[in-house]
Every structure is written in C-alpha cells, then in structure tokens.
C-alpha cells in the first residue's frame, strides 16, 4: 500500500494559525488596546484637573491683578498736610489723617447731597484711610510743592472695586432711551415720577420676576436716581446724585442689582457715587502694582505680597545653606566612604524614615529646640530656614546619593587606576559628574520647602507683618503662610487676593522647576 510508503501523517498544524489562535490574538490585541486606553484616560483626567485648577485660580487672580483707582486733584493745604511744618518730611509721610481729610473734603464738594442727608460716612468709605498713604509718601519726597494743587490716585474701597468688577451681585442692564421725570414738590422734599409706565415697562416687567429688595438705578451721565416703586399709577424715584435736568441730555440706562441693599457691603448711594465718578473718568482700572510692592495690610485693597516674598527668600537662603552642604557631604560619605555594615544600614533606613515624617512634626521640633531651647527669635526666617533645612535634608541626601550612584563605577576605576586617591577621585570625577543630578535634587527640594506652610505656623511665622523684613532675624512671614492667612480673611476681596498670591507662589515654583530642568539639560554629561 502506498500508505506504508508515503508518510500519510500530515505535519502537525501550527498552533499559531488555527481558529483558536486567531481568537487568542484578537483577545491579546484588545487587551493591549484597553491598557493603552486606561493610560490615556488617566493622563486625560490629570490634565483636566490641572486645566481646571489653573483656570479657576487664574480667573480669580485676574480680578486681583487689576484694581480701580480714583483720581484726586488736591490743593495741598499746608496746615492740613504738614501741621508740624513743611520741613518735617517724616511727619508728612505718615500724615494719613491730613490727606484723608483732603480726600474727604474733595468728595464732599463733589457730592454735597451726602452731607445734606447725613451720609458722610458712606461717602468717606469710598477711600480707605490707609489708601492715602502713598499720597503722603510722594508728597514727603517733594515738600516744596505743598501749596500747589496736585493730582493723586487712591485705591477705591475693595467692596466697590469688586462691584465694578461685577463680583458683588448679579446685575442686569437695560437701555431705556430718553427719559424725563416729572418733579413733584411735596413740602420740603421733591419726589420724581414717570407718567404712565411706558418707558419703564421693560424694567418693571423684569423686576416682577426677581426677588424683593432688588435695587434699580437709572443712570444718565453722572446723574443717578433710585427706583422707589409704583404709586397711584406712577413710577416714583429718588435722586441719588446729580440733577434731574441732566436726564434730558443723555439716554438712560437701568441697572437692576439683584441683591437687597441690606445683604451687600455697598449701599445704593455708594454705587451711585462710584458710577458718577466713573462716568466722569475719575475712576480707572489699572494694574495692581500694590499687590507686588506692598507689605501685608488689614485692608485688602492695599495689601501686598512683598514682605512675604522677602521673608520666603530669607528663609530659602537659610534652608539652602543648611540642606545643600550638609546633604551633599552626608551623601558623599554614605555613598563613597562608609563601610557597609549594620550602623550604616540603620542610618540609611532612618534617613528614608525621616523623609516621610510629616512636616508639622518638624515645626514642633523647631519650636521646641530652636525657639525654646536655643532662644532664637520667634517668627524669624532664621528659625524657619533651619526647620525647612532639616525638613529638606533627607530628600537632599536621597537625591544626592541617587546622583552619585548613577556615576558609572568605570570612572572611579579609571581615576584610581592612574593613582588618584579616593578623595581626588570623588572631588575630580565623581562629584562633577553627579553635580547636575544633585543640583536638580536641591532645586526641587527647595521648591518643596518654599511651599511648606505647617512648620512655619508652629514657629510663629504666621504673624501679621506690615514691614518688609531687612534680615533673617526680623519678624517675617512666608508666601504659603500669607496665602493661608488671606484665605481666612472675612472680606470678599481677600478671595481674589488669595488667588493672586497663589499665582505669585506658583510662578516661583514653576521658575525653580524650570531652572532644575535647565540645569539637568545643560550640564548633563554623557559617557
């Protein structure tokens, strides 16, 4: 039989080509696709959070980075401005009362109705007392000009600033066209009314749908009236500022502020005065340099981060002086010289443990050792820097050891082979090659220390500091602590200020990280 001669047994079908194999392949490919998708989804989620974070902080901070200022043309009356004499510039520079008096008089002249209605206080609140300090200081630099009339700018009160930025209450504006009021004399008082409801209809229709207590302001140029309500088929109004006759000159716009006056920090009158000043061009929105050049203040409109930045810089200086040299030396010894035995193992484990100790514990240590035991000054960058230096030290040692370990042993052999001593090998070859890695570790460690808040709270760097510190032993605060403090502020205006301070802190962080990347790229050596 031919069967016996030819090999009838077909070659075993390949395990990789049958139907089952195709299915396995399909399954495996699907699993791979799925895995890739999970990874991309994770990155997508992370990016989404980042974008959300940057957007929310950024949009908040934007409102704080610009603010409204009022222009004043002030006649510098010598008795008010320089009661101690023109020569005493130090007194002029601190004469907040005198300048605020000038500002108050200026506002009172512009808005005489405030005095007539006994509302001077409301008017005076347009400019915070301390907001005139820059005026006093610039005048003190040029005392010869006292007696002249000079132009100054002062920050608008934070609540009105927020109102102009649209952050106080939802507001609806409706154009009403030309309106003329009927004046009804009723004894001493004059009330205003509109005949019929024709021109006012869009407003009354809208107001009917929203909550009680809504304020409606009608503005035509610098003239503003407040809607009181319907009366006998008439809509009646109160004149807040300006004149009724003025309404004939320009078209009228209605502002419907959908929050009762009692629930706001700004009164209808203050809004009216602010709008009138804005209409005249006396209020302008400018970049808020004060935020970067001022120290902290109890008034959000003149508070700034400069003192905190300087405090943070001094703190970082001390931190760097502790963490970098000690960290590098410790890492060098452990990596290059130390024998491997139980003691070095113990040290190594404890360094790793130390890196995981919560930062607030370091704060307690700082308070107990540096302040109580060594009697170093409280609230000083010196102590803050020491504590943050200890906090950064383990990270620094770990990063430096990793960088040293990454230097190939062949370089050490080469140096030892030409007769270099251990120290020469380390200093001439190993350390320079590890330097980019060590620097990167140092910068990232410092960036972390820059953002630390908890230990600084415990050593008293949370104090209110209105003066830029001049040295590491002065009372100071740090940026993250300032953020913490501002975020607990009661006034609404602290909120954008906090966001702005966060942006400043993040800018420093990004700069430091960029520097780390730059150092790594620039000095990295390949072999």
């Amino acid at each position, binding site marked *: 039989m031919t069967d016996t001669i030819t090999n009838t047994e077909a070659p075993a079908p390949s395990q990789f080509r049958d139907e089952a194999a195709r299915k396995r392949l399909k399954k495996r490919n699907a699993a791979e696709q799925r895995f890739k998708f999970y990874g991309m989804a994770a990155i997508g989620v992370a990016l989404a959070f980042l974008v959300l974070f940057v957007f929310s902080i950024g949009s908040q901070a934007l409102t704080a980075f610009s603010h409204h200022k009022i222009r004043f043309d002030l006649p510098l009356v010598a008795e008010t401005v320089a009661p101690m004499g023109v020569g005493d510039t130090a007194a002029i520079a601190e004469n907040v009362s005198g300048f605020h008096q000038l500002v108050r008089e200026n506002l009172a002249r512009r808005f005489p109705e405030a005095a007539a209605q006994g509302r001077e206080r409301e008017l005076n609140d347009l400019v915070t007392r301390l907001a005139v300090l820059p005026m006093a200081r610039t005048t003190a630099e040029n005392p010869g000009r006292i007696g002249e009339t000079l132009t100054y700018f002062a920050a608008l009160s934070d609540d009105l600033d927020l109102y102009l930025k649209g952050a106080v209450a939802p507001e609806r504006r409706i154009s009403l066209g030309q309106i003329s009021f009927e004046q009804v004399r009723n004894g001493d008082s004059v009330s205003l009314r509109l005949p019929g409801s024709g021109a006012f209809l869009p407003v009354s229709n809208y107001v009917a749908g929203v909550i009680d207590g809504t304020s409606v302001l009608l503005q035509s140029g610098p003239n503003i009236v407040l809607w009181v309500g319907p009366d006998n088929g008439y809509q009646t109004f109160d004149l807040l500022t300006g004149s009724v006759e003025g309404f004939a000159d320009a078209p009228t716009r209605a502002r419907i502020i959908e929050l009762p006056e009692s629930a706001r920090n700004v009164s209808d009158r203050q809004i009216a005065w602010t709008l009138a000043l804005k209409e005249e061009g006396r209020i302008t929105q400018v970049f808020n340099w004060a935020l970067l050049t001022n120290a902290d203040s109890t008034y959000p409109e003149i508070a700034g981060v400069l003192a905190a930045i300087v405090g943070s810089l001094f703190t970082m200086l001390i931190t760097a002086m502790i963490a970098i040299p000690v960290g590098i030396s410790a890492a060098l010894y452990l990596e290059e010289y130390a024998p491997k035995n139980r003691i070095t193992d113990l040290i190594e484990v404890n360094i790793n443990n130390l890196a995981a100790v919560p930062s607030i514990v370091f704060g307690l240590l700082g308070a107990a050792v540096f302040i109580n035991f060594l009697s170093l000054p409280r609230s000083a960058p010196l102590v803050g820097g020491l504590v943050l230096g200890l906090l950064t030290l383990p990270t620094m040692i770990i990063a430096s050891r990793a960088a040293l370990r990454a230097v190939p042993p*062949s370089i050490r052999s*080469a140096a030892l*082979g030409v*007769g270099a001593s251990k120290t020469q090998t380390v200093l001439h070859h190993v350390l320079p090659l590890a330097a980019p890695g060590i620097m990167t570790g140092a910068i990232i460690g410092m960036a972390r220390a820059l953002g630390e808040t908890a230990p600084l709270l415990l050593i008293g760097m949370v104090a209110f500091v209105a003066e830029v510190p001049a040295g590491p032993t002065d009372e100071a605060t740090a940026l993250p602590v300032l953020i913490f403090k501002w975020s607990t502020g009661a006034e609404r205006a602290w909120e954008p200020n906090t966001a702005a301070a966060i942006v400043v802190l993040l800018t420093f962080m990004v700069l430091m990280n960029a520097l780390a990347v730059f150092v790594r790229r620039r000095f990295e050596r390949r*072999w």
Partner: protein
Amino acid sequence: MDETENTGGTPLIVPLTVEPAGEAPAQPTKVGCDNINVYYGDKQAIFDISMAIPERSVTSFIGPSGCGKSTFLRCINRMNDTIETARVEGKIFIDGEDVNSHHIDPVLLRSRVGMVFQKPNPFPKSIYDNIAYGPRIHGFASSRDDLDEIVEKSLTRAGLWQEVKDRLTRPGTGLSGGQQQRLCIARAIAVSPEVILMDEPCSALDPIATARIEELIDELRERFCIVIVTHSMQQAARVSQRTAFFHLGKLVEFGDTETIFTNPSDNRTQAYITGRFG
C-alpha cells in the same frame, strides 16, 4: 608544579626569581607572587597562586570565565582593596618590595602599576585632560610646556597622536571605541608606570582596532612589564611571551607561550586551548 622557588636570580632587585623547569626567563622578574589566596566574603576565588612575571615582556593570563584571572590581576595594584568584601592573603613583590606592606601607599602603588580596563573608560573630559590628569595630580609637570610634552609623548607612544593632535580639546568620549582604548593606554603610560595591567583590553573592540592595540602592546613591551588578561587564545599567542592558564581559581600552568600552546604539560590546558571547554 611549584613555580616559586627562591633561587636568587639577581638578588639586588629580585628576591623571587622563578625558574620554571628547564626554561630560564629571558628577563629578570618584575612582579613576584607568593601563595596568593583571595576571598570574596566566605568564598575563595584564588587558591595558592605563585608566579614570577618577567620585566619588559608581555605575560598573558588565559582561562575560562570566572577562573580568577582578573581577580589575580587586580591583586597586583591592590585594586581589590576597593572591593569591601575582598580579602587578599599572600605576598606580592614588585622589584622585591612587598606591595601589601604597611609602608606602601596603595595610591602611589597604582601610579607605579597602571591599569587598562575591559571597557574603554576615558574621563568625560577633553583628550588633553584625560592624559594630563595623572601627571597633574602627581605633580610631574612643572609647567604647561612640560605637560604638553608628556601628553604628546604618551599619545605618540599609544599611536594616537596623529589621529587626535588637531582635536586635543574635544571630549575623549567622542572617539571611536578603539581610539578610546588607546587613549586609556596613553593615560596609563602618561604617569610612567613600571607595570601595565590590561584586563581584556580588546573584548569590546572590532578586529581592526584589536590589531592596532596588539601592535601597540608589542611596542610597549620594550619599556614596560605588561600583564594582559584575555579570552582570546590567538591574542595570547600573538602578543605574549609568557602565558599562564588559570582554572577554577588555580594556576594550572605557566610557561613560555610557545610551550603552552604547542606542548602543554597539563591536560586541562590541552583541553582548553583546543576548545574542549571554557
């Protein structure tokens, strides 16, 4: 066979001269080793090795991987000191001086006994600085001119001068593998060592670069005592005058290269050189 009979030789310099049965070495002994045992922790890597390495000649160490050739080589310049677990017993003499004695500084010893490694390992510095580093740290050159001269002489001896003389400031790591290895040899000879140890210097190189290094080794024989560890038996046969065959941490046979390759006395050597193991 015992190769460490102290028979005198030239007694002023060499207390240990080895007279392997029948054949007198052409050169006096430079490095003498007496009952060397090396331990890595509890594990013994080298067992009772004694040998005499002659001056101005090339001695090659051959043997299968892990047989202790490199470990033994590293005893000669005390590089094993840098390995924490390593422990060396026995005596090694260079010109009759015990290298393990207390008054020998291992750092100075290493400048007297240069070393070239398996993988070319130039410093990530310029070609010039690679050569100048040794003379600089030992204070050999009093002026820039002296240093220039040393660099040129070393590179010339290493056969690299013509190729690199126009780019001395370029990084040494930018050279080809063969050039890098010759740079390392130049770096080793720049400190005027007495002995040069080479640990498989050609294993990472192509045949042409290997041939150049072998030529170079042959030239350097005029001035230095060279010990080379190699996996290539052809290389050992080509460049060396004396060959030592190691197996499992023991010195199996040591003698003239020609004898080892044509008429080995031990059958393990026979088996290895004919390719039956290793």
